[in-house]
């Protein structure tokens, strides 16, 4: 299985975890994003995720590289699911192993924040009373540089 993977089937968390466990890891921080039913007073029926798959996998890999730059002994694996997801389904699983626990927590958290900034994946909420693409589709946020945060022109 790829370390940085967009998939259409349910995610096997243990397979993602196994990809980062090794003899000098002492800590693995795993982040699992699941489909939540209630957001404020809005009730979700189900979600749809769409991705620009080849670019999304490249961007996930880039996040892995950023983590290795910041936490030199870290090892990262990320799988994001797309398609239709029901309440409690796993949308994303991130596993980061490091020799010591503080780095694992920080790196795992870094990964999910970066996914939300630079990986071309989109979520459509299907609520009981309507649907919407999430992520500021109305265009009120400006990317003045043309790049998301931390992505530079090469």
């Amino acid at each position, binding site marked *: 299985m790829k370390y940085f993977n967009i998939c259409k089937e349910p995610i096997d968390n243990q397979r993602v975890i196994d990809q980062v466990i090794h003899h000098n890891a002492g800590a693995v921080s795993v982040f699992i*994003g699941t489909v939540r039913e209630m957001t404020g007073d809005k009730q979700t029926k189900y979600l749809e*995720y*769409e*991705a*620009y798959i*080849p*670019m*999304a996998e*490249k961007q996930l890999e880039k996040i892995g590289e950023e983590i290795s730059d910041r936490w030199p002994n870290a090892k990262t694996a990320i799988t*994001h699911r797309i398609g239709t997801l029901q309440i409690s389904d796993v*949308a*994303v699983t991130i596993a980061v192993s490091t020799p010591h626990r503080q780095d694992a927590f920080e790196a795992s958290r870094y990964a*999910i924040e970066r*996914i*939300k*900034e*630079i*990986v*071309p*994946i*989109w*979520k*459509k909420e299907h609520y009981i009373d309507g649907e919407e*693409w*999430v*992520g*500021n*589709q*109305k*265009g009120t*946020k*400006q*990317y003045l*540089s*043309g*790049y*998301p945060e931390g*992505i530079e*022109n*090469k």
Partner: protein
Amino acid sequence: MVRILLFAGLAQQAGTQDISINVNTPISIIEMKKKLQEKFGHLNGLDNCLTAINEEYANESSMVKAGDTLAFIPPVSGG
């Protein structure tokens, strides 16, 4: 031909995800956005979305040429 990819709300408005547009000489992304609006009418969010050429983020003044894939990337919402 330049291959154009649209996603999320943009694809929904345009009614397609994947089209090809003929270009004779390289043109900027700004110019390509104009061509798209000529074809589909106004597309909400096109003005301020991100773009990628051949799977790498680009900016509005980047040039696309025949054989390139240009993706319009609305604000992402994975995770």
